[in-house]
């Protein structure tokens, strides 16, 4: 055992040194397993819904979707590894800073329309897998128009103040009083799936009011009223069972047999229908555990 182990570590150190000396190492060191996990996580993280243009011929993740928000019009960037218009040349470190801290490689802050306040809780393992998957995509040259924002938001640096006030970049901490399924659900809902970005109401400065987590948002994106998904009997999903929730996340069917249109239908197509059954169930378990809260 021992000599074999030592040989393995020697090979590992040699590879590490080789890696450190080459720029392409990061991409090369991604394993197929990591890329596969990254693909799954990109679905779970809802990256595709926002980073794909609203055209039938749009390349997934190549950016260009127009997002109308109460804070201006945003055009989502290209996440394929194109050098000029995408994330070509990014390191894992660049990617981690973007995803969890909302910082571009040049240090300038992103706008929180990119849900980095939720993604801040994504664990290291998952950050690296997502990064590996995105860098494994074929690069697509797709320049995206600049955002169209009100004057007071035109400088990105304003967001540094916002981050100081509202960004809590702590990785997800499991609640050991709860079981693994609940914790998985909490991780998916609060962080990777960032459900609260639409379903939680926001304060005047556009930060999520987590004291009313998932209670519904009357001023959602694209001028939609986003329903509450807590256990409120009148206004939430208090009548839904775990099976109702999982079936909705899988197929978009509401308990009365209707099928959701609206922006949630995109989320179902690109995100929740692509999850494993146990992950959908974990989401349902977490949602059902939240105390009733009346929607605004």
């Amino acid at each position: 055992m021992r000599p074999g182990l030592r040989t393995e570590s020697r090979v590992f150190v040699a590879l590490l040194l080789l890696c450190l000396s080459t720029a392409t190492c990061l991409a090369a060191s991604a394993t197929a397993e990591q890329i596969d996990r990254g693909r799954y996580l990109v679905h779970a993280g809802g990256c595709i819904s926002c980073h794909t243009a609203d055209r039938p011929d749009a390349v997934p993740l190549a950016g260009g979707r127009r997002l109308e928000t109460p804070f201006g019009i945003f055009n989502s960037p290209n996440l394929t590894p194109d050098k000029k218009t995408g994330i070509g040349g990014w390191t894992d470190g660049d990617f981690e800073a973007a995803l969890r801290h909302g910082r571009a490689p040049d240090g300038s802050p992103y706008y929180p329309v990119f849900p980095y306040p939720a993604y801040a809780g994504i664990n290291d393992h998952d950050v690296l897998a997502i990064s590996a998957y995105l860098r494994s995509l074929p690069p697509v040259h797709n320049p995206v128009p600049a955002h169209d924002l009100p004057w007071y938001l035109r400088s990105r640096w304003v967001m540094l103040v916002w981050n100081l006030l509202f960004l809590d970049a702590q990785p997800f901490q499991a609640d050991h009083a709860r079981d693994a399924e609940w914790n998985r659900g909490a991780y998916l809902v609060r962080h990777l799936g960032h459900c609260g970005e639409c379903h939680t109401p926001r304060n005047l400065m556009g930060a999520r009011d987590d004291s009313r987590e998932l209670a519904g948002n009357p001023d959602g994106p694209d001028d939609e009223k986003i329903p509450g998904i807590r256990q409120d009997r009148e206004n939430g999903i208090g009548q839904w069972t775990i099976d109702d929730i999982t079936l909705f996340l899988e197929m978009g069917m509401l308990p009365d047999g209707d099928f959701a249109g609206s922006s949630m239908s995109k989320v179902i197509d690109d995100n929740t229908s692509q999850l494993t059954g146990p992950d959908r169930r974990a989401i349902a378990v977490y949602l059902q555990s939240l105390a009733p809260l009346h929607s605004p």
Partner: protein
Amino acid sequence: MQHRSLTTLLTIATLAFAGNSFSATAPADAIKYRKAVMSAMGAHTGAFSLINFGRVEHPDHLRAHVEALAAMGTEIKDVFPAGSDTGDTDALPLIWQEQDKFAQLLTAVEKSTAELRDAVAANDKAATMKAFKAVGESCKGCHDRYRKEKK
């Protein structure tokens, strides 16, 4: 004389025919009927899924729900007559602006509901699951584009 009475007859016939084709259905009733058909489709879909996923025990009812869905799948093309675009409806005007595209999506509903009926008749569980997903997709396909979401 004979010529004149023939003309009169033709005129009456034409008027009667025209009156019939611009049928007396009030747009409000056309909308009510559309909503009734849509609710019925939704209700059968909901009932189907409760049985199909084993949440209630009425496997012998399954047939009735898919037969009804398949029948209504062929009828929904009739429930969007011209003139029924305004009033108490969530149907968007786009339906009447791009009839070809709309008709295509309705054909998908007709096809998927027929496939569901056939899969249930053949007692083929895998095909039933697949067809049910397709039914959902076809419903959603129209709702996404042509239904105003409730505010």
